[in-house]
């Protein structure tokens, strides 16, 4: 699978994403400078975290008008997979690809810490591997870090209602047992929302950083469930292509390794 990571001036999680996708998950990665006018032939676009354009005016407000965003919007409207992490989520909101907006954290502080996330919908291209774990009776909350000053998700009542009706709320901040509590909400987000997708399900925005939790050496590998879901989705879609021999074996191998990895992880 080929991932395209968009690099804006001020992106700072682009190389973390690149490392996880290329070195850990053995996928093809193309770095896309924000001034480019083509996504080439990528299968999934990653809008990484950081402080694009210094967060001037509003987070993501300027990046949203970068030349490459035109291509990203077109790609997303055609059903292409787009994941926006942290600043990437903020850019997706500003671009109108996802509903709502980000406010300053309720505490007004920049918060960098591990949080727990309850996966509210495990039937999306980004969460299909987050369901019941091997050896567990129910979906276990993901432990993934956040690092932001403006992650206080806001949507008006009508939008919120629509999000819930269409199962577009993907992640909620919770405690380690999966309970949604006020204490587990780090930034004041409405209804503990940490991540949402569009109605069609091909665009995900999330404040937590799965790329910072994709290796056990870094304290958690739960982020791999998000990446693994994307790989699953792509592999499923390319079954037909596999049958007619268009896909390389490499992708299949990785998917197997990924499943192995998760089961090993969760039985301990």
């Amino acid at each position, binding site marked *: 699978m080929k991932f395209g990571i968009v690099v804006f001036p001020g992106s700072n999680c682009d190389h973390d994403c690149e490392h996880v996708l290329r070195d850990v998950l053995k996928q093809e990665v193309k770095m896309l400078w924000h001034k480019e006018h083509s996504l080439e032939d990528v299968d999934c676009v990653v809008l990484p975290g950081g402080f694009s354009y210094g967060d001037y005016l509003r987070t993501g407000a300027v990046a949203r008008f970068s030349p490459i965003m035109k291509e990203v919007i077109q790609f997303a409207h055609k059903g292409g997979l787009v994941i926006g992490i942290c600043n990437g989520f903020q850019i997706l909101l500003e671009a109108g690809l996802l509903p709502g907006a980000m406010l300053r*954290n309720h505490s007004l502080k920049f918060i960098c810490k591990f949080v727990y996330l309850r996966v509210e919908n495990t039937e999306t291209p980004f969460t299909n591997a987050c369901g019941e774990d091997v050896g567990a009776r129910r979906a276990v909350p993901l432990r993934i870090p956040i690092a932001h000053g403006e992650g206080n998700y806001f949507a008006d009542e009508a939008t919120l209602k629509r999000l819930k009706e269409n199962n577009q709320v993907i992640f909620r901040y919770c405690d380690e047992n999966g309970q949604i509590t006020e204490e587990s909400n780090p930034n004041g987000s409405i209804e503990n929302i940490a991540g949402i997708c569009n109605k069609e399900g091909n665009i995900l925005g999330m404040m937590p950083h799965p790329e910072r939790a994709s290796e056990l050496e870094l304290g958690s590998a739960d982020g791999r469930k998000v990446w693994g879901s994307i790989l699953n989705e792509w592999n499923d879609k390319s079954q037909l292509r596999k049958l007619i021999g268009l896909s390389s074996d490499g992708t299949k191998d990785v998917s197997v390794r990924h499943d192995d990895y998760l089961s090993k992880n969760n039985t301990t």
Partner: protein
Amino acid sequence: MESGKGKRQKRTTDDRRQTTKRNTKIRVVVTLKKSVLDPQGQTVQHALESLGFKGIACVRMGKYIEVAFNGKSENPKQSAEKMCKKLLANPVIEQYEIL
């Protein structure tokens, strides 16, 4: 010293006259909508109250943006309106006023 000071003042007045003649400056104030919680405003309000200022009903924080036009824009006010809608304010959470 005296004469130098006078010169400098004169230049400033000239500059200002030129600005008003040829250029238009549009001032925009962007604030959070009333329905949106403003933790920054609240914090400032608490600080003011702790300093002893009484009778404050509400403090809201916002952004002040100046856009100077160089005389080539036909309708600065109209383009300022467009600027607000497209970039300067986010209609989901903010309202704007062109002063």
